[in-house]
């Protein structure tokens, strides 16, 4: 079952390296746009555009704090991405567990190489 090929899902949002950088920064705590502009050394409109994409798919949430808008990571929305990867990991874990079984058997049958 392939995932739906929409343009507005978490998979697409994290496909962009700058957006992953923003998520990394937000993973350490709330930031406002000024913080992100300084950390990324990008023009503010570009940072705002990336933030908009991340908000649309729910990866990032915003909170009004006086005159500031504080952005934070919504880690729960990354779960579909991690589930997707974990499936592939399960396949390889099972495969390499069986390889380990074969190795242990080989070690027993020929202890002195």
């Amino acid at each position, binding site marked *: 079952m392939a995932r739906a090929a929409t343009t507005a899902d978490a998979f697409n949002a994290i496909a962009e390296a700058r957006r992953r950088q923003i998520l990394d920064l937000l993973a350490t705590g709330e930031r406002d746009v000024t913080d992100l502009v300084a950390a990324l050394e990008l023009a503010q409109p570009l940072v705002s555009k990336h933030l908009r994409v991340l908000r649309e798919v729910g990866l990032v949430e915003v909170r009004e704090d006086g005159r500031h808008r504080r952005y934070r990571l919504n880690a729960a929305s990354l779960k579909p991405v991690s589930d997707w990867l974990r499936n592939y990991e399960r396949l390889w874990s099972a495969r390499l567990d069986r390889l380990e079984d074969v190795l242990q058997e080989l*070690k027993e049958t020929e202890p002195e190489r």
Partner: protein
Amino acid sequence: MTAPTSSGAAVVTLPTDSQILITREFAAPSQLVFRAWTTPDLIRRWWHANRGEVTVAEVDLRVGGRWRFVQVTPDGFEVAFSGEYREIVPGQRLVWSEIYERMPDAPALQTMTLTERDGRTGMTILGEYGSRQVRDAVLESGMEAGMQDALSLLERVAVSEH
């Protein structure tokens, strides 16, 4: 004290947009790991990943030599991979090209390294897929295999209920 035989699960990471990295440690010397990886009778015993059986394991272990592995899942889904060996350093390194035969226009390059320490072997398998699209399709094929697994299990349960 003996070394633990269980060495932990495989870990999959995505170093770049076009790569998949698999790492795992084994409680065995690297020459043995290399042998199990490149000997057809041994490949048949682990490649299946608990999902059906390996029906073809062909290995021509020479630079430029071909390889082909075919696995059939319990519900009859055939999964075939093939390619050729590019670099062979027994016990240390193996590089091969790889295609998933359902996506023949998307070749990958796989590099396996083995590092032995105190009788244990660290394995890395770095897959280079050329683009994020192909890389992601490969990750999805893992998901498909997982789904196949779940579906065939459901089917068995459903059949036994009647």
